[in-house]
């Protein structure tokens, strides 16, 4: 379960082998840096295969936040977990593209259900590949 119910910290929930976090507040720079560290440690500790980041409550993603999301996703990948960003608002998506950020290497899904599905499918394919090998 969650361990980080502290102010200025985003709680990370564990569901099976997935970590779920939902960003419900205006993200201050310090918070997202802390989140990056917390998440890396939690992935290592729980052996999570997937990370779902729900940003449906975020009404702005600027280039700094975008870069941090891409960083988190890259760190998770190295720790053998795949990240899916879910719930991006249409206005945020339009603005990100106009800003010139393509969030390359970051997977996205419309909502938590679809994001979870992506992670499960990825894990199943991985298992099948290992089985065949």
């Amino acid at each position: 379960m969650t361990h980080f119910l502290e102010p200025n910290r985003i709680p990370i929930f564990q569901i099976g082998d997935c970590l779920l976090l939902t960003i419900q507040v205006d993200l201050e720079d310090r918070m997202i840096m802390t989140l990056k560290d917390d998440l890396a440690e939690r992935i290592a500790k729980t052996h999570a295969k997937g990370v779902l980041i729900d940003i449906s409550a975020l009404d702005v993603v600027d280039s700094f936040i975008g870069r941090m999301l891409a960083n988190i996703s890259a760190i998770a990948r190295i720790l053998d977990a795949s990240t899916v960003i879910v719930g991006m608002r249409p206005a945020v998506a339009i603005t990100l593209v106009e800003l010139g950020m393509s969030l390359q290497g970051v997977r996205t899904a419309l909502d938590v259900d679809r994001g979870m599905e992506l992670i499960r499918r990825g894990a199943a394919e991985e298992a099948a590949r290992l089985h065949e090998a």
Partner: protein
Amino acid sequence: MRPEPEQEEGAADGEVIPIRTGADVSRVRRVTAAAMATIGASKIETTRMVTAASELARNTLDYGGGGEMRIAIVGRMSKRKVEMIFSDRGPGIADIALALKDGYSTGGGLGLGLSGAKRLCKEFEIRSVPGEGTIVKVVSWTERP
């Protein structure tokens, strides 16, 4: 000395927001959103302007060594616009054309701050004097028939 009164979130007009910390960048975003709401801007226009404000506030902090943002609502009735002026007394920008190029960064960022903000606002003006500082003015309004 009296403590500063809590700023009302909707009272954006004529406000001056100091930009000294990351928390101030968040405050710039909130104040911009409130101003855009005041002129009845759409969701997408608001998101564009708040994102641009966030980029410019961060530039002011990271490259200008801090500064301030002045925000005002100009014009009347349905022609109202939100105008923001970011200023710092930092090292300035020697080559503005270069600084406006996508991907150009001196600070390890993505180099989308200035160029991105320019794309997101209806009007964008920049003046910079090396050794004296930088001023960026952006204006946005809402498209209505």
